[in-house]
């Protein structure tokens, strides 16, 4: 059982909770192979997707997971903030309409935490600014464990925009908790200060970070950064930091490559390497639905329990 009614971040979870989520995901994996890919467990439960910043993969993944468990899903299309309504007012409105679980993505770090304090419904953080994106990290951990059989002792390189990507932070917390050796490789402008305090190694070259890696997780680098002062240019980033065939050769021969978010080919990862990673990425996306099913189930069942 999860201790909290909400899933706000990996840092709030202890190791047994993380392992329980991964184990329950494993049990649900066969559902996607059935003729009828639907379970009745969350019949009568209502889930709302409240996405203040765009996301295709995460939003659809939650939608698939809800539908596979027979929950009713409300996708909030037009954002209430456009009408000047606060996040909490919106959530209270949803709660009054009987919503049991709110999946929220927001540009401000801490918005889901604030929301969770003010409503009884469960809140799942689907990415809050640069802060956390716990389900994505759990998906990555699950995909690694499923493919390589373990996480403890593995060398994992995190590349790309570590500063802004919520998933990269959650990946880091999650993999360190589960005993992986995490090495971050990115320009200093894309690494938050003090990151090494979280138990990872910080490098400013990709070559050092991917050396002998079992797993490489690349994070999307926004195409906008070339226009501000974070990067001299996208071309320069690509030249020095893109995961290309030469840099990939420094990792273990059967290295597993995962990616969070939409791929910018030729920026954080070359088209050739992205193609090579395709089977892993497909597995990561499929696991995303199953893992979110496990999380929705566990949160929905936890409710109403003393």
């Amino acid at each position, binding site marked *: 059982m999860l201790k909290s009614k909400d899933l706000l971040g990996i840092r709030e979870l202890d190791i047994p909770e993380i392992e329980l989520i991964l184990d329950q995901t494993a*049990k649900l994996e*066969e*559902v996607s192979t059935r003729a009828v890919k639907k379970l009745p*467990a969350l019949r009568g439960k209502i889930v709302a997707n409240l996405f203040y910043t765009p996301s295709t993969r995460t939003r659809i993944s939650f939608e698939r997971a809800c539908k596979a468990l027979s929950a009713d899903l409300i996708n909030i299309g037009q954002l209430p903030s456009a009408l000047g309504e606060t996040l909490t007012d919106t959530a209270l409105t949803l709660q009054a309409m009987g919503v049991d679980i709110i999946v929220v993505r927001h540009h401000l770090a801490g918005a889901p935490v604030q929301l969770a304090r003010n409503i009884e419904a469960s809140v799942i953080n689907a990415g809050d600014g640069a802060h956390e994106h716990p389900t994505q990290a759990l998906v990555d951990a699950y995909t690694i464990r499923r493919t390589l059989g373990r996480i403890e002792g593995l060398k994992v390189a995190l590349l790309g925009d570590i500063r802004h990507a919520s998933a990269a932070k959650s990946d880091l917390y999650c993999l360190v908790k589960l005993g992986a050796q995490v090495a971050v490789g990115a320009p200093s402008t894309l690494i938050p200060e003090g990151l090494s305090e979280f138990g990872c190694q910080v490098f400013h070259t990709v070559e050092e970070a991917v050396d002998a890696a079992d797993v490489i997780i690349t994070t999307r680098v926004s195409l906008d950064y070339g226009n501000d002062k974070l990067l001299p240019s996208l071309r320069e980033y690509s030249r020095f930091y893109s995961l290309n065939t030469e840099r990939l050769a420094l990792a273990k021969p059967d290295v597993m490559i995962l990616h969070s978010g939409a791929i910018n080919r030729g920026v954080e990862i070359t088209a050739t390497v992205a193609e090579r990673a395709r089977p892993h990425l497909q597995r990561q996306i499929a696991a995303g639905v199953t893992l979110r099913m496990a999380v929705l*189930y566990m949160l929905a069942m936890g409710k109403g329990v003393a």
Partner: protein
Amino acid sequence: MAEKNRDLIRTGVVADRDRLEELLDDLVERVAREYAGEPDLAVVGVRAGGERLAHLLADRLAGLKGSPVPLGFVDITLYRDDIHRLGYLPEVGATEIDFPLDDVVVLLADDVLYTGRTVRAAIDELIDFGRPKAIRLVVVAERPGRELPLQPDYVGLHVTPAPGELVLVRLDDPEPGVFLYRR
């Protein structure tokens, strides 16, 4: 299971180890003889209580037919009708049915038939995998107290416990047998 069956006090023995083995042998033999000629056959055990019986049935049928019989398991957790009122999180177990169920006779195996709610859930789950030609219910023990209109096709033992008593079949514990318990 652990949370459901804690603090139970044993109040009687319906069948000891030897009697249980005997009645399992009889039950398996009876069912296997009847279905050995069925060309499209599968055995499915309800987790966790029906697993041992399912294995025994599949093994005996394979022996009689001279070829393996598909064997699967259903975990009914996500199909329970009381899932929202349990007061704890029932952990999901793995359902394993890696063969087609369309137009197959399914022998559904469980330990005790009581209210019938577990069997209802198991049937609903099976039907999500396909449309079996028929589903036959085989149970080690049957007791009164049905809450749904379901009856077994093959029974090892009929038990009539006193009000408030539970019937538990222990198959793999250090002490196998059919026992009565009280909370």
